[in-house]
C-alpha cells in the first residue's frame, strides 16, 4: 500500500503526513485527558518520549518485532502515566498541569543522563519501520477508540468529572480511579505515537521532547476545540501543516506561525470546532448549542 502512496505523493509529503498521523494519535490521547476529563497535562511530550525510547530500545537491544515494540511502548507509557497520576491527580487544575510539566522536565533530564538512552548523544540507528499505511490505520483505530470511549458509560463519567468533580463523586463515580484510567489511556496513545515517531525519525534526543513540545500538543487540542474529536484532528492538522505551508515566507515563518496562533484563538476562542462532537456530526437531528456570553458583554 505504501507503494501506492508513493505513486501519488512524493517522499516529502509522505514524511509530513506520517508525522501528522503520529501527532494525531498523541493529540487524541491528550484530548482524552485534558479535553474530555479536564485534567491539565503539560507533560505530554515526556510521555511521547517514554514510548519512543522504550520502543527504540526494544528494537535495538532485543530485536523484537515492531508491533511488540509499539505495544510495549504504549504499555510502558501508560504505567508511567499511572505512576505519575496516582499521587498527582488529587491536585486540581493548574497545579496538576504544573506537576506534569515538572514531571516532563524530570523525564527529559533523566533521559539526558541515562546510559541506555545515549544521553545527550541521543539514540541513533533505530530501524525505519513506521510507514504511512500503518500510521493511517492506527489513526483510524485511535479515532474509533476515542469515539467509543467518549460515548459510553465510562466516557460520561470522564465528562462528569470535568464538569463538576464534587457532583460526579456524589453520583457514585470513583474519581481517583476514573481519572487514573483516563490518564493511563491517554498516555498509552502518546506512547504508541512515540514508538511510531522513533521508528520514523530513527534518531532520538531528549532535547526534542522538552516542554515546548508538550505545549505544542496542548495548542493542537485547544485550538481545535477542547474535548472535540474532530476539533483535535483539525487543530493538529492545521498547526502541524502550517509551518510547512509557511515555508514560502522563509525567515518570517515562525513569527507568522506565532501570530497565527494568537489570531486563530482570538477569532475562535472556543477553538476551531469547539463543542462539535463526532456523534452529533453523524446524528440526524441537529441540536443547537448556545454560546455562553451575552451579545455585548461588559465593555
Amino acid at each position: 500500500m505504501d507503494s501506492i502512496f508513493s505513486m501519488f505523493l512524493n517522499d516529502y509529503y509522505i514524511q509530513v503526513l506520517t508525522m501528522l498521523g503520529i501527532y494525531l494519535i498523541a493529540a487524541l490521547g491528550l484530548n482524552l485527558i485534558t479535553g474530555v476529563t479536564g485534567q491539565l497535562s503539560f507533560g505530554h511530550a515526556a510521555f511521547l518520549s517514554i514510548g519512543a525510547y522504550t520502543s527504540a530500545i526494544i528494537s535495538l537491544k532485543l530485536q523484537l518485532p515492531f508491533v511488540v515494540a509499539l505495544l510495549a511502548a504504549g504499555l510502558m507509557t501508560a504505567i508511567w502515566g499511572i505512576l505519575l497520576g496516582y499521587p498527582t491527580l488529587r491536585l486540581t487544575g493548574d497545579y496538576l498541569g504544573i506537576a506534569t510539566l515538572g514531571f516532563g522536565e524530570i523525564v527529559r533530564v533523566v533521559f539526558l543522563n541515562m546510559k541506555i538512552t545515549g544521553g545527550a548523544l541521543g539514540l541513533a540507528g533505530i530501524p525505519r519501520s513506521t510507514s504511512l499505511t500503518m500510521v493511517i490505520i492506527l489513526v483510524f483505530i485511535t479515532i474509533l477508540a476515542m469515539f467509543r470511549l467518549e460515548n459510553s458509560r465510562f466516557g460520561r463519567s470522564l465528562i462528569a468529572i470535568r464538569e463538576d468533580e464534587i457532583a460526579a463523586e456524589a453520583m457514585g463515580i470513583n474519581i481517583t480511579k476514573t481519572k487514573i484510567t483516563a490518564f493511563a489511556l491517554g498516555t498509552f496513545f502518546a506512547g504508541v505515537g512515540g514508538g511510531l515517531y522513533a521508528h520514523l525519525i530513527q534518531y532520538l534526543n531528549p532535547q526534542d521532547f522538552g516542554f515546548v513540545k508538550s505545549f505544542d500538543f496542548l495548542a493542537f487540542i485547544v485550538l481545535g476545540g477542547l474535548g472535540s474529536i474532530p476539533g483535535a484532528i483539525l487543530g493538529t492538522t492545521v498547526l502541524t501543516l502550517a509551518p510547512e505551508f509557511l515555508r514560502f515566507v522563509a525567515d518570517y515563518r515562525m513569527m507568522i506561525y506565532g501570530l497565527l496562533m494568537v489570531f486563530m484563538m482570538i477569532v475562535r476562542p472556543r477553538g476551531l470546532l469547539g463543542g462539535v462532537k463526532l456523534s452529533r456530526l453523524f446524528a440526524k437531528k441537529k441540536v443547537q448549542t448556545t454560546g455562553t456570553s451575552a451579545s455585548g458583554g461588559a465593555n
Partner: protein
Amino acid sequence: MLSQQILNGITLGATYALIALGYTMVYGIIQLINFAHGEIYMVGAFVGVFMITVFQQGLVVSLAAAMLACVIMGVTIERFAYRPLRRSTRLAPLISAIGLSIFLQTLMTKIKGPQPIPFPHVMEDALYKLGPIEISKVQIIILVVASLLMAGLHFIVKYVKIGKAMRAASEDYDTSALMGINVNRVISFTFAIGSSLAAAGGVLVGLYFNSVSPFMGVTAGLKAFCAAVLGGIGSIPGAMLGGLFIGVAETLGIAGGFDTYKDAIAFTLLIIVLLFRPTGLLGRPIQKKV
C-alpha cells in the same frame, strides 16, 4: 564554601523572584499562565543593553527605560492578545501566550541575530570580603535593587486599594465591576507591574551574567514560573520565597554534586512540595464547601 554558595543562590533566587512576581500577579488576577512573560524579561534585557550601548546611558536610566518599555509591551499584549479571550475557556489565553512567546522570540532572533550578545561593561568587578564570604559589587546591586522593587510592590499591594481590587477581580469580574472597580484598568495595571519587574530582572541578569540572548527567557521563565507555583501561585510573598528557595536549592544542588540533574532539582522540589501542600508553600488552601 557553603555560605558562599548560599549567597550565590540568593542572588540567583532574587532574579527568579523578580520574574516570578509577574507570573504570580498575572495568574492571581486572570488565572493565566502568561508564557510570554519570559519573553518580556528577555526584551527588557535587550532594551537595557540598547540604552547603554546606543544611548550611552547609565545603569539607572537604562533600567528605568527597560521597565517602561516593558510596561508598554505588557499592557499592549494584554489588551490585544488576552482581553478578547477573557470570558472563554481558561486555556485559550494560554495558547495565545504561547503563540506570542514564539513570535517575540523569533522576532528578536531576526532583529539581533541568534547569538548571545555581551552585556556592556558598566562597572568594575569589585569583590568585597564579608567574613568568610566574598560578595561582588554586581551581587550587591542585584540584591539591593530587587529588595527595593519587591518592597515597593508589597507596599502598593498592601496599602493601596488596588491590591484588594486585584484579589476581587481575580474571582469575579462582574461583581467586582459592581463594586465600582474598573476591572480593565486593574488588569492592565497588573500587567504593567509584572512586566516592569520582569524587565528589571532582565537587566539585572544581563548585568550579572554578562550576556543577553533571544532565548534567555525560556529557561528563566520556566524556573521563575516554577518558583511562583512553589511559593503558592497568586501569593506575592510566595513568589519571593519560591524564587529564593529555588535559587538556593539549585545552587546547593550543583555544589552538592547533583549538577547533571540541575534542571530537575527545581521540578522535583516543586512536585514534592505540591504533594504535601497542594497549593504551594504560602498558597491559601482551597476551601471545599458544598
